[in-house]
């Protein structure tokens, strides 16, 4: 288990420069330590996260063009492997799998057996963007920060090796800077890399965040990083912060949503929202699950599976007699209010990291930043009207 979150000690060792060619050695070093590498690769017209056998599968030279309801691959003018913003998947697919068997039982034996393998898989997460680093931190809090830790997540998380890659290429739907989640990364990683692909060559500035990270890095050919290259990497990240396509108001989101439960704006969103649940599937922090109990034909063998669920489904709030949230209004309100407001009450932070996935993968192009702006506008207008009314009342007296 690697320390994570804010408790991570300062990096053992100075930053080094690793050439892109040496990524092959990184794969070997990770494979040699028993890790299965999961990272970005091009598949089906998108950059997806998949188990990678070699560095050659990384999306060298590919970028992504995103917008509301839009995602397209585009060829880059350089060979950058991480010059793309978030794709349709996030790391919850790896750490909090969409399907997991919780247990199986045999009636005759009167016995229930835990369903996860004794040794959970050990993954090296390669190319975790700062927004997604924060998302993993949030999942840590939700799934392991309570009285009882989720056994599936805990097993996978504790065994994971995290290679963060700072963001130098934000997309049009990105707003991590305004959520305080990027584009740089300070902690929580075993290794952190910043990619530079320019006239001086394709290379990475790499820092180790843990002893385990330093151990892996020692097996990868590298050279000391000089002041100039460190400054250049830092500038690339700083510059990314100024190129975010979208933004969220800095303060008051939680209060805005808590105060908007009866807002007329939900009717407006519901007229567009298909309640398809895409936003919850692509969101890197949406963690909700349901269970499915199954039996074999004899009825003697039973299993329980846990599967991702979405607060947009009618079944989600089903109680004997009917569902609590039947309208589209109430289901969109639940999702955005949870993300931006009640998450604070429940888990002590926002549930949004500004990755922009929900905007890109919404078939109706609903944009969380615009809905917030609309809610804020309505609230301000109402406040102004009330003040005006109070003023007039005062004058009449």
């Amino acid at each position, binding site marked *: 288990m690697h320390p994570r979150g804010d408790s991570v000690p300062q990096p053992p060792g100075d930053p080094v420069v690793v050439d892109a060619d040496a990524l092959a050695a990184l794969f070997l070093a990770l494979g040699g330590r028993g890790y299965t590498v999961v990272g970005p690769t091009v598949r089906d017209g998108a950059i997806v996260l998949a188990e990678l056998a070699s560095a050659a599968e990384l999306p060298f030279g590919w970028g992504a063009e995103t917008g509301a309801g839009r995602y397209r691959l585009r060829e880059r003018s350089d060979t950058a492997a991480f010059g793309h913003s978030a794709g349709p998947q996030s790391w919850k697919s790896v750490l909090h799998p969409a399907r997991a068997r*919780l*247990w199986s*039982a045999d*009636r005759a*034996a*009167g*016995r*229930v*057996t*835990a*369903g996860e393998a*004794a040794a959970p898989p050990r993954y090296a997460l390669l190319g975790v963007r700062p927004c997604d680093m924060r998302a993993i931190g949030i999942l840590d809090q*939700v*799934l392991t920060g*309570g*009285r*009882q*830790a*989720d*056994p*599936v997540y805990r097993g996978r998380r504790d065994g994971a090796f995290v290679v963060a890659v700072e963001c130098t290429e934000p997309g049009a739907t990105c707003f991590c800077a305004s959520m305080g989640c990027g584009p740089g990364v300070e902690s929580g990683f075993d290794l952190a890399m910043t990619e530079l692909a320019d006239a001086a060559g394709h290379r990475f500035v790499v820092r180790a965040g843990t002893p385990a990270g330093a151990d892996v890095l020692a097996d990868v050919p590298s050279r000391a990083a000089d002041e100039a290259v460190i400054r250049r990497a830092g500038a690339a990240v700083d510059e990314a912060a100024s190129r975010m396509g979208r933004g969220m108001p800095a303060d008051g989101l939680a209060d805005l949503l*808590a105060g908007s*439960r*009866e807002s007329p704006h939900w009717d407006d969103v519901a007229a567009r929202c298909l309640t398809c649940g895409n936003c919850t599937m692509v969101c890197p922090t949406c*963690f*909700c*699950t*349901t*269970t499915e*109990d*199954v*039996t074999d034909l004899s*009825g003697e063998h*039973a299993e*329980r599976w846990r599967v991702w*669920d979405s*607060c947009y489904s009618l079944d*989600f*709030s*089903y*109680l*004997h*007699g009917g569902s*609590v*949230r*039947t*309208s589209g*209004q*109430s289901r969109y309100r*639940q999702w955005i*209010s*949870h993300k931006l*407001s*009640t998450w604070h*009450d*429940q888990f002590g932070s926002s549930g949004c990291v500004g990755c922009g996935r929900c905007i890109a993968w919404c078939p109706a192009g609903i944009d969380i930043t615009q809905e917030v702006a609309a809610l804020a506008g309505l609230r301000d207008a109402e406040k102004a009207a009330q003040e005006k009314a109070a003023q007039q009342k005062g004058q009449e007296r």
Partner: protein
Amino acid sequence: MTGQRTATATLADPAPAVPCLYRVASRREDTSDTVTVELADPDVPVPAFAPGQFAMLTALGVGEVPVSVSGLGDGGGGRARRLEHTLRAVGAVTRALCAVQPGGLIGVRGPFGAGWDVPSAAGRDLVIVAGGIGLAPLRPVVLTALAHRSRYGRIVLLAGARTPADLLYAGDLDPWRRAGVEVAVTVDRAERGWSGEVGLVTALISPAGLAPGNSVAFVCGPDIMMRVTADALAALGIPADRIRVSLERNMRCGAAWCGHCQLGPLLLCRDGPVVGYDRAAALMRVREL
């Protein structure tokens, strides 16, 4: 090897995603659709459940539902602890659970959630208001108060049911009266032979002559019944933070991992199911929250 989790499940998994299998030790049909079962196992001790806490009960191969405990379970007389639940058959899982006969297996996870916290009401009158199956989670409140009778003032139980035949624990009521519980009962629809009250449970509040300044209220029933009752008790002068309601939402895990039981800022499996009306009132007023 009856009803044991494997060693790996017990040791590696303190978070009980995996149910223990218990045998149905006794089964009593309370009404046409309601059954009370006691669960026990000779090998695995039954954990202690506080009044108001709940278990996730599994009908193998069918599914799992949250159900509050309806008894204290400590049997007395050196008998091993039992887990008592009252189940109403309203869906596939509860129908299957109700059908399990003595000796049959039911999966149990728990205890989960925040309970009624009866001891904190010491020195005060207890006002217990139940609607229908809502009497089940309140029964341990009555039993706890009777077990420590001198710690509490008056014990007032106001119970409503659809019809006289739907009234739960009819056999308990007279012994409770004799033990000093002031019991009042009303039904929505009377039947031949019913000479008691007819109407909403809220109609029983005024005749009870409560002392609002020194009362703690415990309310359980359908959402709308709890709202109307809690509002009536608050109007009488019982402070909202001394009115406790037991809320219900869809639950899949019991451990705050699945996200289903949200009511605004609350995760009811963790922050509830028993919640002070000072927190619950505003949330219960929002439609479809």
